[in-house]
């Protein structure tokens, strides 16, 4: 994958940590949730067990109380009355019904029934419309233990014996309306697996039935309804669970009990997780940045070097890692070596080419020193025009080399005294192109090509080799052209003496604007007689530039003249 180093560093530090963090948070949360749920389930269970025990104890107490009722002598007298008078006697049964109503009323029961020794029901009353009504025993057969429903109401009953002399002569059955909410925990009553009544209004009976179908009637049961955990315990009830098809169970939603705590935990974990992730993000970003920054700097530096060809050295960095510092130092050393090598090479070329120029000058005694003088005049003009040091350097070397192309021109033509034929003239005119061709393949001398090639172009386009006009000729070449013409005019020739300074300036002024750049001519005119200045300057060997190296001690003094140049100058003067 092609991506930036900083991005890769960031991702490789952030992603594993983020994943690790998320997974561990998730795992911790899940385990905490499970623990909380288990704890709650246990506490709900304990609570229910305690309630069931309390329930059982209450049942026991109630039973003793009921057995006391079974000893009621009035009731026994009533039963005796019923036995002696016979069930057919309306008033006898009414007497017993009245007794039952009275007992029911005083003990807040809702149902009471007496049965004979063989279990045959004798009389029963039920609370009805603020009072009590007799039960039609031909139609309703309440059990001695358990549940029965009458008129859409569910009754819960239990029975105690009525004894005479240790033998049971009758059975008293008492009961109340079944109140499912009395257990203190959510409960459900089932008959043969079908829900009779339940406290959970938000659950459909069918759901409860399906879920509880798997539970053993006498055991604890964990179940799931609507994706929520429920706990169900058998609840104590008269008659015992399951014997008559009725089952009474608690049904507690464990998840609902732990829901508030779970919500708090979830929120806590989310907040902590986000904070940790954000911290992770920041740390990753910072660390990847600190790792990648020096490398990015190095890379951008190298890219700049590649683009410019320059090899600038790195500023000394103190903050970077050892490796980075070694890298930049290595680069700096290499860059320095390359710089030095390149400089040496350039110097060697310049020396070599300069030597060529000198050799050229030396071919004719009259042109000896010409290149050096043109170079000096050009530099003086450049200084007067406020050009930079770099410009000066180019002009100095370029002026030295400006007539290099004359190497390729025969001495016969070059040193021919007298007029040149048009063919010979044509040959002479090729020297800027020849000079350019010699230099253009040498690396490092590109800057001087303009001067060598174009120092014979005229402002009005009448020059050679291309006939460029005005600004199309670079300033360097225009400066060198003025200096070249001046030196040609003021140098002595075998056939004439050189012109004086004033005469030469006058000639330059006469062609200023047509051949010469007026700005350059004006600047040169203001400088005064350069030859005097040069004489004073000659003793001063302070030239440290490359031109120094070119000239060296190989200066050939003496008034040696070249006919060719004279011809050129003459022709120029004539035109």
């Amino acid at each position, binding site marked *: 994958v092609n991506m930036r180093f900083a991005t890769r560093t960031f991702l490789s530090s952030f992603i594993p940590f983020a994943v690790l963090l998320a997974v561990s948070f998730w795992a911790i949360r899940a385990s905490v949730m499970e623990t909380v749920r288990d704890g709650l389930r246990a506490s709900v269970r304990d609570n229910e067990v305690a309630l069931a025990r309390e329930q059982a104890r209450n049942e026991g107490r109630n039973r003793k109380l009921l057995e006391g009722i079974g000893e009621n002598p009035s009731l026994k007298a009533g039963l005796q*009355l019923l036995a*002696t008078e016979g069930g057919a006697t309306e008033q006898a049964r009414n007497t017993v*019904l009245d007794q039952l109503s009275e007992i029911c009323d005083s003990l807040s029961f809702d149902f009471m029934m007496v049965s004979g020794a063989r279990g045959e029901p004798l009389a029963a009353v039920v609370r009805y419309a603020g009072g009590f009504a007799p039960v039609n025993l031909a139609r309703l057969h309440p059990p001695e233990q358990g549940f029965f429903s009458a008129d859409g109401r569910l009754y819960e009953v239990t029975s105690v014996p009525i004894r005479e002399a240790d033998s049971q002569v009758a059975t008293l059955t008492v009961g109340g309306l079944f109140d499912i909410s009395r257990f203190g925990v959510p409960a459900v009553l089932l008959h043969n697996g079908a829900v009779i009544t339940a406290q959970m209004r938000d659950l459909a009976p069918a759901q409860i039935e399906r879920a509880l179908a798997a539970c053993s009637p006498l055991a604890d049961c964990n179940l799931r309804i609507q994706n929520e955990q429920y706990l169900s315990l058998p609840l104590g009830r008269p008659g015992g669970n399951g014997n008559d098809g009725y089952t009474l169970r608690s049904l507690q939603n464990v998840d609902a009990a732990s829901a508030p705590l779970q919500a708090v935990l979830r929120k806590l974990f989310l907040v902590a997780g986000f904070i940790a992730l954000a911290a992770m993000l920041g740390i990753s970003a910072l660390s990847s940045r600190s790792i990648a920054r020096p490398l990015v700097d190095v890379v951008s530096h190298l890219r700049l070097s590649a683009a410019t060809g320059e090899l600038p050295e790195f500023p000394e960095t103190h903050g970077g890692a050892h490796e980075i510092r070694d890298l930049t130092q290595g680069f700096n050393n290499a860059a320095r070596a390359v710089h030095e090598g390149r400089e040496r090479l350039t110097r060697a070329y310049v020396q070599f080419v300069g030597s060529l120029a000198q050799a050229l000058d030396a071919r004719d005694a009259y042109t000896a020193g010409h290149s050096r003088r043109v170079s000096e005049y050009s530099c003086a003009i450049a200084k007067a025009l406020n050009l930079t040091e770099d410009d000066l350097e180019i002009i100095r070397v370029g002026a030295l080399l400006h007539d290099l192309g004359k190497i390729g021109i025969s001495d016969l033509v070059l040193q021919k005294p007298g007029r040149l034929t048009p063919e010979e003239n044509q040959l002479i005119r090729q020297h800027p192109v020849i000079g350019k061709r010699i230099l253009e393949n040498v690396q490092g001398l590109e800057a001087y090509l303009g001067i060598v090639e174009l120092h014979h172009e005229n402002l009005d386009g009448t020059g050679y080799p291309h006939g460029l006009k005005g600004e199309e000729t670079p300033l360097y070449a225009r400066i060198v052209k003025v200096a070249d013409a001046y030196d040609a005019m003021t140098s002595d020739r075998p056939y004439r003496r050189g012109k004086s300074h004033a005469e030469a300036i006058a000639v330059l002024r006469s062609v200023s604007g047509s051949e010469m750049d007026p700005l350059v001519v004006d600047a040169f005119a203001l400088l005064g007689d350069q030859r005097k200045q040069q004489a004073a300057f000659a003793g001063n060997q302070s030239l440290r530039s490359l031109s120094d190296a070119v000239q060296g001690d190989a200066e050939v003094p003496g008034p040696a003249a070249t006919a060719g140049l004279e011809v050129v100058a003459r022709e120029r003067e004539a035109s």
Partner: protein
Amino acid sequence: MWIKLGSCALVATAALAGADIHGTIIIERKLSRHNVTASAGMYQRGVAVELGADGETDPLAFERSHVAVYLEGGPKSSGTESGKASIEQKDRRFVPDLVVIPAGSAVSFPNFDPIFHNVFSLSKAKSFDLGNYPEGQSRLVTFPVPGVVAVYCHLHSNMAASIVVAPSRWAVRVDKDGVFALKDVPAGTYTVVAWHKTAGTFRKTVTIGERDAEVSFTLPYAESTDADHVAHR
């Protein structure tokens, strides 16, 4: 069959030309707690009402009206004397729950409830059991021996009534104001006896001459607390 007790007494005492004994019973505090169930019907029972809680019935008036006063030491009540006394069984209660009769009188026990009742007593003065009998029937019991007879119902254990059988024919039940009068008592020295079911028996000696006598009792503080009524069971 009802005999006019008053006219007989008047006939008997006219010759003696005795004086009257007037008296007052002062009850200083409640002597018993009475919870009366006010029954509306056969199978309809209202909430328990504490007597006097409604303000109309003075609890002390209830206590005063449940005091029996009679004379001891006078001429013995002859066995021929009989009174028209009746204790009805109505709404699972004996009405009235206190009857004062001279010895030898008979009391009838009619059942006006649509259910069976049973009337019995185990008291020394008179033991009897009238059995279970339904609505519309009645039983008659004669009480020849003086004493207090406690009457109950086997079928309804909260039903109870007291019959005070006095040794003389001067025997009355005090009215709500606590006032009683024993008329035409021959001259002589007597013991006036006041009896209350829970407070007990109180005695005061009084000598009757030409003029009427005044006897007052303050219950429950009495010189004598001989509670002979406790012996009945």
